[in-house]
């Protein structure tokens, strides 16, 4: 083995991995190149667009900006982990589909992960909260409106269900 490599252990989408990595590898590179999870996308590489967002221990994190070493022992959820394995979409994914909340789809995985983490953290966000929270996810196609509607629809349905 390459002597500069270090072994890290992590859980991704519920599955345990033990991987030998170079110290300068980012989490994004680990997911895409080592684990074959290409749903997470690279669009800027300077922490400005949010396309590479994943959830690390419940926190939305831009995976291009942290090293794979930093997630040693942590639990990661990427876009591949949102739907159930037998093909059932998450409520948020369903809502995105229903509201035509994406076009080219390249930034969509990042948006889904950011909004999934936000909905975990905030039980009852207002539209203003959602807009603020989603500020880190750039999109060139949609103009944002339909995916904000999709998120607010999930918030509304959740409130309805809690009644």
């Amino acid at each position, binding site marked *: 083995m390459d002597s500069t490599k270090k072994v890290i252990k992590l859980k991704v989408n519920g599955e345990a991995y033990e991987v030998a990595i170079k110290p300068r590898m980012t989490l994004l590179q680990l997911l*895409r190149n080592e684990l074959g*999870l*290409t*749903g*997470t*996308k*690279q*669009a*800027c*590489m*300077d922490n*400005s*667009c949010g*396309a590479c967002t994943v959830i690390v221990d419940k926190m939305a994190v831009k995976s291009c900006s942290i090293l794979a070493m930093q997630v040693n022992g942590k639990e990661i959820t*990427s*876009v*591949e982990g*949102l*739907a159930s394995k037998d093909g059932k*979409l998450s409520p948020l*994914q369903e809502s*995105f*589909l*229903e*509201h*035509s909340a*994406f*076009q*080219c*789809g*390249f*930034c*969509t*995985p990042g948006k*889904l992960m950011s909004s999934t983490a936000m909905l975990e953290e905030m039980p009852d966000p207002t539209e203003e909260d*959602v*807009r*603020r929270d*989603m*500020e*880190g*996810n*750039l*999109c*060139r*196609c*949609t*103009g*944002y*409106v*339909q995916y*904000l509607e999709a998120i607010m629809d999930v918030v509304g349905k959740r409130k309805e269900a809690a009644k």
Partner: protein
Amino acid sequence: MSELSIVGKPLPRVDGKAKLTGRAIFTTDVVIPGMLHVKLLRSPLPHARIVSIDTSKAEKLPGVAAVITGKDTWGIRYGFVDTPNYPAEERPIAEDKVRFIGETVAAVVAVDPDTAEDALDLIEVDYDPIQPVFDPREAMKEGAPQIHGEITRNTSCAWEDWGVARKSHSFTPVNNVAANVLIAYGDVEKGFAEADYIREDHSRSPGTSHMAMEPHTMVASWDPFEEKLDVWMNHMAYELKRYWLHKTLGIPITKIRIHKTYVGGAFGGKAPCFDYEVIAGFLSRKLCKPVKIELTREEVFSSCRNSHRFDIDIKTGVKKDGTIVAQHCSVIVDAGAYKCSAPVAMFLSHAMCDSCLDRKNVRHEGVAVYTNKNFNFARRGHGAPQMRLAADSQYDQICEDLGLDPVEFLLKNLRKKGDVIPNGDRLDSYGLPEAIKKSAEAIGWKEKRGKQRDKNRGVGIGINGMFSGSGYWPFACTAIIRLNHDGTITLMEGDCEFGQGADTTYSQIAAEALGLTVGDVTLISSDSELCPMNYSNFLSGGMFVGGGAVYNAAMNLREKILAVAAEVMRAKPEEIDLKDKTAFLKSNPRRSYSFTDLMRFHIQKHMGDPLIGYGHKKAVPEIEFYPSLSRGTGRFTDAYGFTASTAEVEVDKETGRIRVLKIVVADDCGFEINSAGIRGQMISQAVQGMSDALYEEIMDDEGRILNPNLVDYEIPRAFDVPEIEVIDCSDYEPKGPFGAKEAGECARAAVISAVVNAIYDATGVRTMRIPVTPERMFNALKEHGK
């Protein structure tokens, strides 16, 4: 087909599940075992002779497979405009000279991207700088440095290959002029002589980035045994890319296969041939290995195409009542180092806009000029946004000067439905009048225009017209629909899915025509080997031409199914309808046969024919080959899409910051095949248009781009988006599939003008240069003592 049940509905996108679960394969996700990685060395100088390049150290770096320079690709030429009069001058790697900062001077292929990057540092290039020129007006002066010498041709151009017999010749630009256009009709001098009021203005639109989220990427894999190149790439229509790869690499066109990948946004910016594409193909073949090249965001800004900077002098003559009697536009297009689509852009800046208003006597002259900067291509509207900004802000000012209402002014000067406009195009559908009225009403025009300056608020209006494909040969598309044994269909159509929704809307069209659901359609799209001919997905021809071909193929299959059902049921085809994979008698729906049974019968009785539908459509049937770009004569398009947009803004006089409160987009797309998709297209353009008006500009200094990243090049974020209202003003287009035509490009230009005019209404200060940044607004207010 009685009532429509599939088209006209906001059905979920067929690419949705793939895109929402991370399973959609984009080019960046393609990995082939043994794949090598390419990085490009870019010129640090805007204009220089290459004295020598030493690649020996780079070649020795462990992991490097090859290094190539212009010596390896010498003589290869390509270009978006490649005609007998204007031979192509782009090249994959600079040969003896670099012409802009970012031009490729060498390529390294190595085992991984890091090694390739490291090797770039070991290449030594000796440059001899030449005086550069950055401003088109300077570049046109006598004695300015000449960016190109004689442009010669060493391979045939598309015109010759496609049988348009004209003899090619070389071309030597004089004073850096890449191309001219002069379009005129009526009598402009007489028109101005009859005018009661004449106004002259200047407007400037900056270079902007398409900023598609997916950076440009390509994978090429040469099979030395089959002598075939497999390609996965960022494109908007594979047919042209495949043609260019064939021409530049000398590979037979059918020995190149472009595979389907989803494309992560395009907006025009992925359509032309790029240096890295030729290089990737070249290296894969040289090494007999798969190679991948992924550009960085900075490379996308500095070495892929951006939008054209336009300088426009516009002079308009009107009667007292606001009737336009003459207009003279003089357009300078900053082409950059290579002409690419600049000759087309200055033609389109006239052609698209001519559909909106009757200006009676028009002269439109343009010049495309080489400068030592990265060069440009179409961005969503291709020339129209720049021209509409000039025209619509001048109309707004004319109204202010003469005490007229801008909405009334536009309505007064409209063309009419059914009009044949000067080039011969007929406006069979023309939803612009309704769009103007409805957009004005929705923003509260009457109550607000000119009445909110005390609150620093204002409203403005803009309009636009856009082609539904054009007569550029062979702008035509074919579709094939196979009836399957279980009564479902397989649709083969070439259009690329880059977000616009082609996969979904084409499936809807085919399903509707055959009484099926979208779930009954298996789609094969965007693969050059599996799909029939496809030239439709640019100049907004996707729906009209590509969708039209699908419609024709579906109707062809429908006729065949009806014919066999008629034979089986001993009825007339017109007595039969199709629904739920069955054909049934309209008078007695219980008398029905399943598609499966009909197909079996047909195979049995008709020599094994399994029922295949075939359809095609040409963008403008009457055009033999090309319309004239330089004279603007000949038919342009068979149907125009139209938009009117209004906006309300609030200006903070202390800071110059402008807040958009609301944008209304009233659009005529003929018919909304997928209403959710159309709404998405309109919102998208509203936000892009707002962004153009207020934020976006590629800043450069001495040819170097100063903001080549997503931090310094600002685009709107979720928080910046105002209230957006979309109003459907569709006017049924008789030649379109179910009446549909252009939708994806028209609105952007109208929104830019609406926002800019609203700023005037709010402040009384006219800004005809975008983006209206806080700094520009603040200075303009100060200058006018406000």
